[in-house]
């Protein structure tokens, strides 16, 4: 089945821009979310570390 050229669903429309658009959009969305969560976690952890350092200093 892979050997012969398959029919286009849209009658001559090039499917690849659509396929690329869908996959790239999904990748972009997923990556954005990943980056957002990572960034927020990093910021939170930095604040935690700062607070720990601060309390350690004040306990001396």
């Amino acid at each position, binding site marked *: *089945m892979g050997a012969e050229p*398959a029919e286009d669903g*849209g009658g001559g*429309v090039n499917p690849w821009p659509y*396929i690329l658009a*869908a996959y790239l959009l999904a990748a972009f*969305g997923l990556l954005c979310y990943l980056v957002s*969560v990572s960034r927020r*976690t990093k910021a*939170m952890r930095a604040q935690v570390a700062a607070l720990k350092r601060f309390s350690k200093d004040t306990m001396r």
Partner: protein
Amino acid sequence: MIGRGLERALGILAVIGLLAGLYAGFLYAPPDAVQGEVQRIMYLHVPLILVSYLAFFVVFVTSILYLARRCERHDAIAHSSAEIGVLFTALAIAAGSIWGRPTWGTWWTWDARLTTTTILLLIFIGYLMLRALVDDPSRGATFSAVLGIIGFLDVPIIHMSVVWWRTLHQPASVLRPGPSTVAPDMQVALYTNLAAFVLLYGYFLVKRVRLEEARWELSRLRMEGAA
């Protein structure tokens, strides 16, 4: 506390899975007899939808558990899963729309599944908005839990109503997203991608829950400092 090891392991597995899925979807599986190459979007669209249903099911279960036991972790998992579910649903609808354009000629159709999925998206966007608007965290968790339970229970009813609404007016020949025949190698590609996206969901979930844990630690430290 969830360990970094789990997060890393899931991340690596997810990447491997996604790469395997891409291979299966583009190189292993044949093009569709009717739709041609564009049908390959199915390997993205269907896993995203199915995993989002899984995510919302997790919201449902953890919401019930939270109301029963008031354990903060259940609330964190519910919130995280809802966020990821909304993301996956939105991307699934977008991918489906892009798939629909060359296939049916339109960006949108009031197809039963697409309509139901959009309603699901609206319900859980509402869930996230409710969370954002309630100031008291314990109240927010409780309200969201109730909404999560009711929202999820509503989905089968929504689906039935939309299907009846469509079938009573649709002619028999209605184009739906999906290959004309699900050849075995297509199934392999589909399941590979499905597994990959489940792993990705797991990775995102663990990561997101760890953010909540960091937030708890921060507020705990702040309260100790104030004491």
